[in-house]
């Protein structure tokens, strides 16, 4: 450090950037940041590592307490919240001037950063859920690959369940995750919310269809009605063949390799959809890099974002962290192309959609989970659970309805 500042000359013209990153990413990015500093001797970057479990609270309280970084990593479902706080700098012009563009990325993930037509974040790495399955159990049931439509998929699950017997299942869908019912809803064409995201649309026919499909998997015994705690050790049970399929994310590719016996034949596949492959969408996850509106060194901060977005930085970051790169060019790297388990992810990432991009979504997701659990346990019929869900969601969105209505009236007065 002393050496670095020694060659940097006068310290008065040096800029210090504050960069907040989470968990493992915050740890490994230090290495890339050092090379960035070598390239830009006048810029020093302090990486502050925040544990994932407290990241959301910390970022929000820090902003309210008027202490913010220049650049931060944000989970891309949080972007709308920080945009609502007016804490982020729109990046459209900056991105336009450099080579960072939607076409070079996975469109669905890119879109999670676009709030009300403005771009607020640049995807850093991506993440989505695909179907992990046991090749041997599927084959024994008479299938060489996962059928691409819901009907075919259900038939395959029925065949697996017939062979598996009482205590074994076709698929594990943890009852304590909202992601599965949300994915099925999006697949069957529901937007989850309606009227500019100001009302719940869970009673609408598309979501109702998805909900029936989802509940049917439990009712017919294809999926055990238990949560993550109930299954105790997912890896052990998957190896034992307690269930043959599991919808989960890229983090489990490494876990499966480390924890399952090498003889366990497993593979990944993009999710089936109600009308075949094209409708088999999944959630657009990942993290974005954002620029704070109040940053005093926006030019340098943008340089850092650009540096981390380069193809070679993306490949290196992916090797260090195990995350999937956001730039499609980085996927041509041999380690990703050559990994059969990751191919399904690349296909799936071309078919991802964001969950509603509003600050209230996280709370709505917890309500979706509560009502789904009720319906799975049989504590309420599906239509009652969905009606309760829409009522709850409409309550949560009351403020948003008022804001949208006010915007409209203002626009109306201005037009006159």
């Amino acid at each position: 450090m002393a050496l670095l500042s020694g060659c940097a000359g006068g310290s008065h013209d040096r800029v210090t950037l504050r960069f907040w990153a989470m968990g493992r990413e915050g740890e490994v990015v230090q290495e890339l940041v050092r090379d960035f500093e070598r390239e830009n001797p006048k810029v020093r970057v302090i990486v502050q590592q925040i544990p994932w479990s407290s990241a959301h609270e910390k970022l929000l309280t820090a902003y309210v307490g008027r202490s913010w970084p220049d650049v931060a990593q944000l989970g891309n479902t949080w972007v709308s919240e920080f945009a609502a706080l007016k804490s982020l700098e729109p990046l459209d012009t900056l991105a336009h001037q450099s080579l960072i563009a939607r076409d070079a990325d996975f469109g669905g993930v890119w879109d999670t950063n676009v709030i009300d037509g403005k771009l607020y974040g640049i995807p850093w790495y991506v993440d989505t859920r695909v179907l992990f399955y046991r090749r041997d159990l599927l084959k024994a049931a008479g299938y060489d690959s996962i059928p691409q439509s819901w009907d075919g998929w259900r038939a395959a699950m029925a065949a697996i369940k017939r062979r598996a017997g009482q205590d074994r299942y076709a698929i594990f869908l943890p009852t304590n995750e909202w992601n599965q019912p949300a994915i099925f809803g999006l697949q069957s064409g529901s937007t989850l919310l309606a009227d500019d995201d100001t009302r719940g649309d869970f009673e609408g026919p598309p979501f109702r269809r998805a909900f029936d499909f989802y509940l049917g998997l439990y009712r017919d015994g294809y999926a055990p009605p238990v949560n993550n705690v109930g299954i105790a050790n997912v890896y052990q049970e998957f190896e034992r063949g307690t269930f043959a399929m599991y919808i989960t994310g890229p983090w489990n590719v490494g876990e499966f390799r480390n924890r399952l016996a090498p003889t366990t034949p497993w593979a990944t596949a993009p999710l089936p959809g109600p009308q075949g492959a094209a409708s088999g969408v999944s959630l657009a996850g990942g993290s974005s890099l954002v620029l704070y509106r109040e940053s005093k060194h926006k030019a340098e901060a943008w340089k850092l974002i650009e540096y981390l977005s380069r193809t070679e930085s993306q490949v290196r970051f992916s090797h260090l962290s195990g995350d999937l790169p956001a730039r499609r060019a980085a996927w041509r790297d041999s380690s990703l192309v050559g990994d059969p388990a990751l191919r399904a992810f690349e296909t799936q990432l071309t078919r991802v959609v964001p969950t509603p991009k509003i600050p209230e979504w996280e709370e709505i997701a917890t309500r979706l989970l509560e009502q789904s659990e009720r319906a799975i346990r049989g504590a309420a019929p599906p239509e009652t659970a969905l009606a309760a869900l829409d009522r709850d969601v409409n309550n949560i969105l009351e403020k948003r309805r008022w804001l949208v209505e006010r915007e409209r009236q203002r626009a109306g007065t201005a037009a006159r």
Partner: protein
Amino acid sequence: MKESIEARQARAGRLFVAPALTLIAVFFFVPVIGGLVLSVTDFDIYAIGSPDTARFVGLRNYADLLANPVFWKAVWNTFYFVFVGGPLSVLVSLVAALAIHSRLTRLPSIWRTVYFLPVVTTLVAVAVIWRYLYHPRYGLLNYGLGAFGIPPIDWLGDPHWAMPAVILLAVWRTFGLNMLIFLAGLQSIPEELYEAAHLDGANDWGRFVHITLPGLAPVTLFVAITTMLGFFQLFAEPYVMTQGGPLKATTTIVLLMYEQGFRWWRMGMAAAIAFVLFLIMLAGTLIQLRVTRERAR
């Protein structure tokens, strides 16, 4: 013109209390009034971004709160904690104080330090250790129970056992402070009373009931009230150990307030919860004072 002595003294008195009153006004009344105002608005994440979106909503936050089953669950949990954990904490600290005060105990200062240690240890470090103790498979507690043939208990994962587990931790963590206060109380009881009772033929139990307990009455009231006030504000233990789960079994009023305020950013609702908690605690304190006064009569 000549001021009377009384007038000058009164003025001096006012000057003397002025700094303290100013501090209380600035750091107590202003925030309290601010909180009250906040509780009749819908101040939320949108309002943090642009304050003009905050609206006056009257008592809607309070009405929503009373209609929310999670709030009643939190009230029940908090009362459970206060009425089981509070007396337990007072009792344990009294017993510890009596044991240390008794002449039979050697090296009382060491015991005093040992018992006081949990009070000054950071909660997060304590919580990590207790999580190990409570671990259903590898925990020391279940290991001990296993020696008596009792099957393992999922302390933090079972809705029925989570609150007892939190109470146990909280009592262990807080009794040291109350013990010190009780010790001070015990030392202030004049030795002559015991000697006189001894000469009159009172036995150990009689001396305890008729001298020690009445002598400790004011201290006990103080300890009971401060413990109750502290326990009503239970937050850190469940926040660190269980995050309010399982099935909201350890969600307390303050934890709910924190969730509303800092997880969902409904500051108005969080302020309303704070006021309801304030009213509950005020009622608790008044009842306790009343009961003690009646008894004194």
